[in-house]
């Protein structure tokens, strides 16, 4: 049973996430797999120095009791928020792509983007919303 610890499970989650990211064609599910990969890194960081006797890092603690290292926990808080930011922004971009191509199939979108670039050259490419050309193009 000792092998079921945080680090092992974190790497198994990484493998599941990476497999799903490659195998699943649906972009939304790809993003969920990306979230899983990020979570696996977070679980790894939490559990790498964890020992079953450790207690919660909130004072006061009785003498002689090990407390869990607060530093990785503080780092992980940042990583969770970053994970959220990545998932939200990429979801927005997937929504824009789906609206344009009417499909969530990654290969189909990739193919459509490539043919669009090849046939039209780099000019006159369709914008997602046609009316924004006046709005602050750099």
């Amino acid at each position: 049973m000792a092998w079921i610890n945080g680090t092992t499970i974190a790497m198994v989650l990484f493998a599941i996430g990476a497999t799903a990211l490659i195998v699943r064609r649906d972009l939304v599910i790809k993003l969920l797999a990306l979230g899983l990969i990020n979570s696996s890194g977070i679980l790894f960081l939490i559990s790498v120095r964890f020992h079953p006797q450790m207690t919660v890092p909130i004072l006061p603690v009785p003498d002689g009791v090990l407390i869990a290292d607060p530093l990785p926990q503080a780092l992980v808080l940042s990583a969770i928020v970053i994970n959220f930011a990545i998932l939200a922004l990429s979801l927005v971009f997937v929504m824009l792509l789906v609206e344009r191509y009417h499909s969530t199939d990654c290969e189909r979108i990739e193919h459509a983007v490539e043919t669009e670039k090849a046939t039209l050259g780099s000019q006159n490419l369709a914008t997602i919303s046609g009316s924004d050309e006046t709005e602050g193009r750099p």
Partner: protein
Amino acid sequence: MILALLPLIHIFLGMAAIAWKACARATLIIALLADIGLVALYFSPVSHVLSATAAGGWTEAIGIRLMLDSLALDFLLLTVLLEAAVLIYLWRQRLHPTFVLLLQFLIGAVMALVLSQDLFNIYVILELLTLVSFLLVAYDRRTFQIWASLKYLILASIGMSIFLIGVAIVYANVGSLGFAEIGVVVADNPQAGWIPLAAALLTAGVAVKAGILIFSLWLPDAHSAAPAAISAFLSALVIKMGVVVLIRLAHVFPLGPTLKILGTITGIGGAIYAMSSRDLKRMLAFHTLSQIGYLLIGMSVPEYGAESGVLAYAMAHGSFKALLFLAAGAAYDVVGSTDIGHLILERHRIPLRTRSALLLGTLAIVGLPPFDGYIAKAPLLAATHDWTSQIVLILLGIGTAASFAKLIPLFKGPYRRVGNDPAWESYVVLALPIILFLPIERALFGTAFTLPVMSWFLAVESIVIVAVGWLVYRIHRRLRVRPSERLFRLEPAIFALMIGFIAIYLVLRFL
């Protein structure tokens, strides 16, 4: 003391640009002036205010330290230079406050990254950098931009997870995240079992951001899809942030052979793709890959002078790559395409100043004396003594010359005064370091530059390299071979990333 002000000023002013929308443009100038002032402090008698600090006074292992060393100084100067050039380039265009905010955040994150001496701090800043450049690449909301930046985000995010696992292993073994403490522990016991795995994870994670061929397969799409000013920033500066982290890692971990292998693959692969690319911006993006290979090989050389050569080359590459991207953007505005054949056909419509900027950039990039490409390459060539690195460096020079030989017809007549390039002042800003590179670098790095640059042998060698490159271009044009670009799709890129990590691990463990 006040080192952290450098990034924070940009972030504060970025927010201010949204708060007072009318002043968005003014915040860019204020930020530029503040940067110039703060960097100038370094050369003034009160330079101690820029000495190493710990954020919040936490000097212990748990805190975050910032330091302005020669590496950071070099990139700070490059940042200020590019900031000035891009500000001038964008001056006459309408700027949306969100764009200004993202630009300020980008610059702020770059400055924070070069100053940071802490692994996890680097992780957070790299993520900020990823998100900001992700938004900037797709700023025009064209579909190919959106797809390119989505691919970028997915790959970069996998890389950062790998990096985070590396950070965890380092922390578990060292008990601190500062480079100084890690360096001490690694030097104490260089044979410790955790070092290869941690180094492989960290290197593979950063490699995704650093433009290394097997890892950064998002780069050609993202850098060629972005708006011109953003391309200049990304290719000249942001991609080198990965290199900065790699340099810092290489100071701590024994990465020499790994970097050499990665550099060779990246450099030669990038050069081959650049040679066969027919789109100007895409060619510049591929060429960035091959130049990253140059930097990596320079980093793997332990000899004296190699590191200042790397820094000088990073700066030189930043200046001429930004010049080329900005000029390519101006040419695109006139012609409506960045296809090289198209540009050559319509060359009479491109303003003369744009064409001169392209010419200057090309001369500098192929490494002809007396421009900065040559001056920065010379110490690298002089410092590498083993013949494999020498050969790779020469091959890279030939590849660069061969890919830029495509542009030669662009500089033929007729030279009529047509139109006016609205942003020519920004070319002047970038041309200054290209032409006056030697005095600037001598002032910064001292004696490392006196010896090799003056050698006749190196000058002749670089001219011969360019000539051979031109010949290769003629032969390659007959052959009409184009390598497949399927590798740059999303799913193969994820595969390549993971296989690349395993390869780096094997090299570090068994070589």
